[in-house]
């Protein structure tokens, strides 16, 4: 972190169920502590439309499943110093990637979801974990990770320490 200003913190929601963000909200009163320690500059729970520049720590929930995710994660990576793959969908693809077992045209046919033009984002041929698309600096598996694990990871990253080991898949 640059010493001359408060750390800038963000969270992003790609192809996931938002359960990791629900678990993030389970930080409860520690959210106030986080707000005291860092500027939360972008998040599904913050009022910001564009992912800003010069972010120190970003938590990314969800796999990369469609064209919008792809565009978003590239911008997030370009503007973030330390990127955490946050939860099993970001880390492994998890439930979001179950469709990889079926060819995309069959997925669309089965779901009754025709390939529309905008505003529906195009699905990628395969759902990818975040680290298969951009460089990832740290991983926090879990479906979802517990609030305690999230807090341990967030405080470590804000302090410039590695994420404590021991988190499990599932």
């Amino acid at each position, binding site marked *: 972190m640059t010493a001359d200003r408060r750390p800038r913190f963000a969270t992003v929601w790609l192809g996931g169920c938002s359960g990791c963000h629900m678990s993030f909200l389970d930080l409860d009163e520690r959210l106030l502590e986080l707000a005291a320690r860092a500027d939360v500059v972008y998040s599904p729970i913050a009022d910001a439309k564009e992912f800003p520049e010069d972010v120190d720590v970003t938590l990314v929930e969800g796999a990369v499943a469609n064209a919008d995710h792809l565009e978003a994660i590239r911008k997030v990576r370009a503007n973030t110093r330390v990127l955490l*793959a946050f939860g099993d969908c970001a880390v492994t693809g998890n439930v979001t990637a179950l469709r990889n077992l079926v060819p995309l045209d069959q997925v669309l046919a089965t779901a009754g979801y025709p390939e529309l033009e905008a505003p529906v984002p195009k699905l990628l041929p395969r759902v990818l974990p975040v680290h298969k698309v951009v460089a990832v600096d740290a991983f926090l598996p879990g479906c979802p990770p517990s609030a305690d694990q999230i807090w341990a990871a967030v405080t470590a990253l804000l302090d410039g320490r590695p994420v404590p*080991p021991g988190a499990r898949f599932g």
Partner: protein
Amino acid sequence: MTLPTPTLTLTIDGELHSARPGATLLEAIREAGVALPTLCELPGLSSVGACRLCLVEVAGRPRPIAACVAAAEEGMEVRTDTEKLRLFRRTTVELLLAERNHVCAVCVMNGHCELQDLAAAHGVDHVEVEYLSPPDLRVDASHPRFAIDHNRCVLCTRCVRACAEVEGAHTWDVAGRGGASRVVTDMALPWGESITCTSCGKCVQACPTGALFEKGATVAEMVKHRERLRFLTAARQEGRWLLELEQPPSSRAERGASTTAGVGGRRDARDSSSPGLPGMAGPTKGSP
């Protein structure tokens, strides 16, 4: 006069330890109090060296060896925890996770799985190798009580050995080669059509992952045993507890034919081979 028991002496991680002649290297290492990860090993079954997690380095050997299928030898100098071995173990766990479709979040064994435990214990917080995502792995739920999801099988063959060596049925075996290997029942028949399976369930208990599981443990598999309500109705309306109604223990068929059969909540109440049970609303699914 008894002769003193001969022992071997070997060096494990720089310390001298003794071992029984005939012991495997894995046994010698564990008896020395040194932890070594395993997955295909299960006490009571033969060792096959399938999972490669118990690899150790032995001075003078060009490459690591699987301790479970190596004999402890006099004078061996063994290393169990080098940087190279730690990398090999992490990679092995990653390869196991990448080979088939392991989705812990929706698995019956989530939180109790040996593969999941190994990943956490060895710092596997993501998988660097490519997921193969094989699309052709099936679930065989043809057995009345058990099912196999090949997506979660790691080919440890614990089921094969438990069935062949303990139950003596040898229903399970491995067909195919390499990545195309599958555990199969009988001559690759559906499990429910196996004529050798005794339905003992040892394979299910031996399986380290959620590949082999008892039915009734996944989404939409709950079967209500309405007949058990008779516990309550008999007690409330007739003032009798079913203990009074229960016949003396006898053969399963006789219990099945009695009016109280299945009321005690035995798991096999929905086994379709049970005779018809008076007063039971189920089971109907799968009954002949």
